[in-house]
């Protein structure tokens, strides 16, 4: 019985890890496709989105089977519940990568746009999101709660960059009326990266729940609201 359970847990762990790396790669490639106006890479990201979706369904199904067949309790139950949610959050991040790639496919980006990207701190935004994603995976693999919680602070950088990006885009659109559409699309990209940060926070919260049974969901938001009040 124990050996069977361990095998199942190991299998789910590996699948989640693979899904995580797939989504990381998607997000990274989506970034590179924006930065280099690389349509081929953007097409690849869009095509691999189907793989992300299929992987999500496979993992969901495997976790459902694990719960039905092995009736997990305590740490095993928390693992199963946390991995279900982590899986769903990863899929959403995959969706954002796909949306960003599709922005590249429908927009003719020019080398001059790189100056705007620099003003927007696109590189910093992207690198922060990717770091958060990698840090959270590491925290899960090493059962490191402190590392998982560290991403909450990093997420504030994403929020700040997103906030200032709106101001930059408004100013740019005012100066370049022909670029209004591009600015609106870029606002969407930043919004998606900011939401990616929120989903990575969820990944970290679920990691902490699995390891330590501590429920952080909404609690951090409530605490923040309390501080503001």
């Amino acid at each position, binding site marked *: *019985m*124990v050996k069977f*359970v361990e095998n199942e847990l190991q299998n789910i762990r590996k699948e989640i890890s693979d899904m995580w790396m797939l989504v990381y790669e998607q997000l990274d490639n989506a970034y590179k496709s924006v930065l280099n106006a690389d349509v081929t890479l953007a097409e690849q990201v869009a095509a691999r989105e189907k793989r992300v979706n299929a992987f999500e369904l496979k993992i969901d199904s495997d976790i459902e089977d694990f719960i039905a067949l092995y*009736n*997990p*309790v*305590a*740490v*095993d*139950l*928390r693992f199963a519940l946390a991995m279900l949610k982590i899986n769903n959050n990863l899929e959403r991040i995959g969706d954002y990568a796909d949306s960003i790639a599709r922005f590249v496919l429908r927009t003719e980006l020019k080398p001059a746009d790189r100056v705007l990207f620099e003003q927007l701190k696109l590189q910093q935004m992207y690198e922060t999101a990717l770091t958060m994603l990698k840090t959270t995976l590491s925290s899960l693999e090493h059962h490191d709660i402190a590392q998982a919680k560290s991403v909450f602070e990093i997420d504030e950088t994403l929020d700040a960059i997103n906030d200032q990006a709106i101001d930059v885009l408004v100013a740019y659109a005012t100066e370049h009326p022909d670029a209004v559409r591009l600015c609106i699309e870029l606002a969407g990209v930043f919004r998606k990266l900011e939401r990616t940060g929120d989903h990575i926070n969820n990944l970290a919260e679920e990691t902490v729940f699995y390891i330590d*049974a501590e429920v952080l969901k909404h609690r951090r938001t409530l605490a923040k609201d309390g501080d503001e009040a």
Partner: protein
Amino acid sequence: MNKIEAKNVDFYYGSFHALKGINIAIPTGEVVAFIGPSGCGKSTFLRLFNRMNDLIPGARLEGQILIDGNDIYDRSVDVDVLRRGVGMVFQRPNPFPKSIFENVAYGLRVNGVKDKAFISQRVEEALTSAALWTEVKDKLKESAYALSGGQQQRLCIARAMAVQPSVLLMDEPASALDPISTAKIEELICELSSQTTIVIVTHSMQQAARVSNKTAFFYLGEMVEYGETKKIFTNPEKEATQNYITGRFG
């Protein structure tokens, strides 16, 4: 308020130290499950609550067991009177070789009740509370042995409930039953908990999780952990408890 309290309980079978320093408080009206691997002492502990171990040669108890605040091992306690208030259901159904009616009426009769109308009423009430009345009301004079295993077990519960005990002890009451009979016994436990405090020993983790409010985990004669069932099965305090309930040892 606590129905049962054990204070510093140690129990020995001759030189074997079967229970070590157990302290527990079981609140009135709760369902408490005892879990743990075979030989951990959970059944021994359960049987102390109605002095079932008294006649075992070389058995020795230290510490106190209180029911309603009274030490049940006090010299002044009449064991028959104690057992009237503390019923017990065993792993295998053990109906008497009598009719269904007489099985349930037995406890009342040995307690000197002679009023036939009263006995009939209590038998019906007990069989109803054991969810058996509709199945047996037309064959009360038939032998209890004619019933299925699940029905026999519910008959034993009805027999125990006929004298209106304030505590019901159950030692793996569904381990010999099929899933449907098991489900009926579990439903019964939930319903009876409004009338009596129930302590159940079970080897089924899922059963303990389904029926009990509190769970105690025993290992090698010690009570490792005791707490709310929800807590024990989602986030136990002790690693040993987690290892046991997740099937990693035991």
